[in-house]
């Protein structure tokens, strides 16, 4: 790997390259708390990686930083070779929109808005035409097996169905990486397996880079690489 200083870009096959990421909350106050103590991480294109840790291990904080929802206190983070520390908030919003697909434990679908509109939302923010949005949304809902319920609002859907819509939404702008934060956490094991099957399909058929954040070793075992995190540090298995 070659790092070009000053130019703030690196030549790397990695989608995600993090160096010595430190995150400190309440910096400079009595309650100062360092959550991440220097994380080094490299995730290559097409990998299906799981980040495993107990609650309080810092895995959610790491996910927020990887998902560009938060910035590290120090350290560098490159996505597709671009230095994210240097990017202004506006640029981060655009990268979240185009390059990252979020799947949350509690789905976070927009209430009172039907499935198809939820899937269209990232494309709306990306500035796609109504027609293009609709076509793509239908295609994605078909892929997750939700084409028959795309007019349903979230409160008319079961947990598994909501998560399938959420996965379709995460795929909307064909992101470089899907960040799934405990995506089966609120589902029973059968539905959970169905959702995991979708991720496997996305990984194998669509060659998507997927980062699965979970506390479950069983789920993590399904992925090709497991990164253990404990007390804010990456530890060997």
């Amino acid at each position: 790997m070659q790092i070009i200083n000053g130019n703030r870009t690196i030549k790397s096959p990695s989608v995600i390259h993090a160096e010595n990421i430190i995150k400190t909350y309440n910096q400079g106050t009595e309650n100062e708390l360092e959550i991440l103590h220097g994380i080094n991480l490299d995730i290559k294109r097409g990998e299906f990686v799981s980040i495993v840790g107990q609650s309080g291990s810092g895995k959610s904080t790491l996910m927020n930083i990887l998902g560009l929802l938060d910035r590290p206190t120090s350290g560098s983070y490159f996505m597709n070779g671009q230095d994210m520390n240097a990017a202004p908030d506006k640029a981060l919003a655009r990268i979240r929109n185009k390059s990252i697909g979020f799947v949350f434990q509690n789905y976070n679908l927009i209430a009172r808005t039907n499935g198809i509109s939820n899937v269209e939302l990232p494309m709306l923010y990306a500035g796609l035409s109504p027609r293009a949005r609709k076509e793509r949304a239908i295609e994605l809902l078909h892929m997750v097996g939700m084409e028959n319920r795309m007019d349903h609002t979230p409160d008319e859907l079961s947990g598994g169905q909501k998560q399938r819509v959420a996965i379709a939404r995460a795929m909307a702008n064909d992101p470089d990486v899907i960040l799934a934060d405990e995506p089966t956490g609120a589902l029973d094991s059968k539905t959970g397996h169905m959702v995991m099957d979708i991720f496997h399909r996305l990984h194998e058929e669509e060659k998507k880079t997927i980062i699965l954040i979970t506390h479950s070793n069983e789920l993590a075992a399904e992925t090709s690489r497991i990164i253990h995190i404990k007390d804010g540090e990456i530890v060997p298995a």
Partner: protein
Amino acid sequence: MIIENLKLALASIKANKMRSFLTMLGIIIGISSVIAIMTVGNSLTKAEEESMSSMGANNIMVGVYTESDTAGEMPTFKEETMQGLVKAYGKRISAIGIDSQVGTGTARSQVSNDGKTTSVTVDGVNSGYFKANNVTTIKGSTFAKGAYENGTNVAIISDLFAEAIFGSVDKAMGQTVEINVDNNYTTYTVVGAYKFENNGTMGTKKSTVFYIPLKTAQNQLHSTDVYGFTAVAKNSDDSSALSADIMSYLQKILNPDNDEDIVIYADSLQSYIEEASKMLGQITIAIAMIAGIALLVGGIGVMNIMTVSITERTREIGTRKALGAENYQIMLQFVTEAIILCLLGGIIGVALGVSLGLLASSGLGYPGTVSMTSVLGSVGFSMAVGLFFGYAPARKAAKMNPIDALRYE
């Protein structure tokens, strides 16, 4: 993007119908009261202006009266005074109308003698009267010059009078009518007829007016005293100025000692209209201020509910940001919602205000006239209220930290 925001706003308003309605109430009350008052005011002004202009907007009513009971000392408008006035201001006056009422009596035909009678007011008029009062003959003509000079017994009657006594206007021409005023019987020859016009509250009932030459009336009254007349300005723009000039001229001639008991007036209808619309304008300003307060309170209500709504939807905002919404897009969404909320309130307010205003106008006996300016102005203003009071909550939403928003329970 705009269409999506509109859809979102409507969906959000629909989802909380009761809350949205209560929020809009302040706007509805504010806008509807303005529109109602404006409609009534507009209807009133229009009706008054129409009735006044049918009387002649160029007319100046000139008269004299005394404040105390020192009768006998009261000046009247003498022949030479009138001539002096015409000499001084003749170029700006198109007509001077003088009338002197003989009284009210009973009229009947001398020919048919079938016992048909009708009640009339006998009014002696000069040649300028017809022009000053907008009376035009539909048959025959106004009095000949000789009739005015010699005081002959000729008359101009209304079409209704002609139909009642003679059957038609045509049959009435040249006929003789006998009028009994206080048991003084006088006969007149009909030389013309005018069309009766009911011009509402301001006009006299011309149907019953029986015009004779001024001199004829003065002969019967044994008096040439004139206490008032109507001067018609050539140019309506000049009528206010002309009325002031006439007043000061007559003051100099008739009341050189400035006796406070003697009041000479020269009021133009133009100045009445100006006065009335000025008063109405002041009332409108007062109402607008009250409505402004209602809208302010309504606007604060909108701000409050938007703040609540944004807090409730913190997770949604977080999700939108995670999906790549930029701050301005979030801001636009909530500003749109506030504007739509106020716009709906404004539209309901306009509908309510127009109905109330029209109802009130017809209750007062005026044809309703809706002011489009106030309708459009109100709708625009309600949107401005939404923009103004929705801005701060929307900005708050736009500036939310995405992680905090996503984590919000």
